[in-house]
């Protein structure tokens, strides 16, 4: 069973894209951390990630893991948001995977990511949709 406590703990990041910015060097950490990976300082201020970005690299997963078997072909990308933060997300609403390219502008939209089977919790988050 996917722990409901674990799911709940992640809501600020999954639902609202909440991150933290180091007050010493400005590096944004998503998810938030105790120690800044850039300068090792320990003080942060809350920020929300922007929802626009572009595809840095991607793949189309044809052999998905358990829990995603029906999702193939599953496009997943590393997206760089306009503030420089990078996130890994699925690309949704893709009619033809051949259309995806490095550099494509995308926007993050609220979607259902997975569910713990038929009876478990539903996990929501964001996916990227291609901007026309």
């Amino acid at each position, binding site marked *: 069973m996917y722990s409901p406590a674990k799911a709940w703990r992640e809501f600020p990041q999954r639902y*609202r894209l909440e991150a933290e910015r180091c007050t010493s060097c400005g590096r944004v950490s998503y998810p938030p951390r105790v120690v800044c990976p850039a300068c090792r300082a320990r003080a942060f201020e809350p920020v929300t990630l922007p929802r626009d970005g572009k595809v840095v690299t991607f793949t189309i997963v044809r052999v998905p893991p358990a829990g995603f078997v*029906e999702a193939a072909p599953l496009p997943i990308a590393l997206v760089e948001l306009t503030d420089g933060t990078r996130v890994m997300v699925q690309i*949704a609403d893709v009619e033809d995977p051949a259309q995806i390219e490095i550099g494509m502008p995308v926007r993050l*939209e609220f*979607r*259902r990511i997975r569910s713990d089977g038929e009876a478990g919790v*539903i996990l929501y988050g964001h996916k990227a949709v291609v901007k*026309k």
Partner: protein
Amino acid sequence: MRVGIVGYGAFIPRRRIQLEEIAKVWGADAPAYRKGLQLNEKSVPGPDEDTVTMSVEAARHALARSGGIDPKDIGAVYVGSESHPYAVKPSGTIVAEAIGATPELHVADLEFACKAGTEGMFLSQALVKAGEVKYALGIGADTSQGAPGDALEYSAAAGAAAFLFGADEEKLIAEVLHTYSWTTDTPDFWRREYMHYPRHGSRFTGEPAYFRHTKSSATGIMEKAGMKPSDFAFAIFHQPNGKFPMRVGLDLGFTKAQLETGWLSPWLGNTYSGASPIGLTAVLDVAKPGELVLLTSFGSGAGSDSFVFRVSDRVSEVQGLAPKTRPQLDENKIYLSYGQYAKLRGKIRMAE
């Protein structure tokens, strides 16, 4: 105190299936269906879309049009649907959490067949008018299904509309002048617990249900308001197919021109709790200050909520601040085969 809509937005998924695709699988007469139901194609939710996700995006569009309302000032969120993702666990709390309105607010999930969306709007409006909350968000959203091969399979579609209500004069997009509701116990359409698909009384869903309640509610509000059809620039009715809303509108004395803008079902299908609310968003996208709008929903079981809106000056400032409804309906469509549709809608029996 003037209360009304201070933010609005709709979300329509990109996927579509055409009526012919469904008809050929079940050996139905597609041209006759097209003509009889006045339906061409309908929206289909993606594997990652449901009532909650569509509600969140529609709510975000509403906030984008609200002139900077702080989500923490939203005192109530109501999500009306007949396809809530959980049987027990509210959709409204997920939406409220996602838009940042928690924790000081009232949340309820509503259901009343296709009327659950306007129910949320009805309650939101009343709560703000009573001075209980500063802003209230009423959302109608559905991803309902029709049984394979049943008439409803041609129309059951997916979409959401969200309306933020408030009493700030300078934020009003459309003031609520009157509300009215007409309700009886009429079992025209139902779904028992644990059943996958709803059942309906076939032709009984027409005159005794849809037409009787819609007409009574629309007539009732116009009487209450001392208004007549020609006073309105737009009228929006619940749209279970293309035919019914046109018929009831013309019967009531409205013209095609008044009905067309809010009439989306021929290309959208029936988005159930989202139906007339999405129609309202399409109207607001093009409405001009001073125009009067009539909205009458219908939910099986049965009941009809009516609203008379007067469009405010602010409308032209906000229309472009979030995705409009008609482009979401007409552009960027992804067409599905019946096989893809059946897979997406969970109609194929998978391995345990």
